[in-house]
């Protein structure tokens, strides 16, 4: 008995591909003093790695952020900068 279900049935989970934050070579950094809470970064992040808090402030989930930089590219007030991922 292999202990598997009768066919390939996968269940939902965060990090299905592991800690994809490890893929990064650059990371976005939010300057909260400049942030206007427009939520465009939250909207456009393909990963869903921008966390939207109750008060609409945002935070990067570095466990899963792949460092694509779309958030920084789209931020209308340049509150997000992209820096090299430290070793």
């Amino acid at each position: 008995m292999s202990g598997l279900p009768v066919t390939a049935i996968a269940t939902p989970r965060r990090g299905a591909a592991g800690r994809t934050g490890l893929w990064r070579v650059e990371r976005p950094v939010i300057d909260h003093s400049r942030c206007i809470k427009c939520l465009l970064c939250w909207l456009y992040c393909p990963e869903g790695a921008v966390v939207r808090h109750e008060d609409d402030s945002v935070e990067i989930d570095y466990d899963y952020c792949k460092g694509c930089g779309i958030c920084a590219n789209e931020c209308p007030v340049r509150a997000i900068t992209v820096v090299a991922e430290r070793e």
Partner: protein
Amino acid sequence: MVTIKELTREEYWLPGNSSCPGCPAALGLRMLGKALEGKFVLVVPASCTTVIQGIYPATPSRVPLLNIAFAASASAASGLRAALRIRGLKVPVVVWAGDGGTADIGLQALSGAAERNEDILYICYDNEAYQNTGIQRSGATPYGAWTTTTPLGKREHKKDVPMIVAAHGVPYVATASIAYPLDFVEKVRKAASKSGFRYIHLHAPCPVGWRFPPSKTVEVGRLAVETGMWILYEIEDGVLRLTGRSRVLLDPSKRKPIEEYLRAQGRFSHLDERDVEELKRYVEARWRELKKLLEERGGCLR
């Protein structure tokens, strides 16, 4: 029009999945989930999204999802819809297929389902090549684009799938772009409120296949619309209307020069003047036809 803040915080396509950094398909799936608030089932043929799901036993999908063979999404969805209907379950069935599984190998099943007016929502996320297998050209690849099977640039123009579907006389056809997610969400919601065969063609710029940095996915998508290369419209019961940014672009002076769009992508880097002229001709011809349709026939396709 829905606002960003109104969108749910819930994620129905979970982070930490196998998509490339900057992937438009992943972005589209997030938006789809928020549009329907997780109340739908997905049918996914062989495509990037098959691989984005990752490997058994984990999946990023928080909605039930049936993976199916490449050519078969529209017909599998038809069968699934029939089963749910006869069991009295009203949950919408949504196909999420790439351009390969829609314009090429999937076209027969798509046409059959459209002709039968199957009660499904079919969304094609169009990254304009067989990206999953390594960037080979599809019928949806635009004229001049480099792909691994068109290294000197595709000689044929892009197959106009939304219009092909519209020719079936279905209740709803729309184009959308991941650069205009709220427009996409509106269209998904409008489509979901109808019954019969509904089709949305979502433009999905792919950093890997189109050769641009992953941070530019949304920007390239925006340029496609602003230059008029990609047109946002919807066709409701056979009547076409432009939506969002495209509404003001009937006036050619408002459209950005297409060079801006082409320059942003490595797949067009080899184009010569004649190719660019050909693309300009193509874009202008499409807009002229649309203008004629809107002004002379009130957008009525029949």
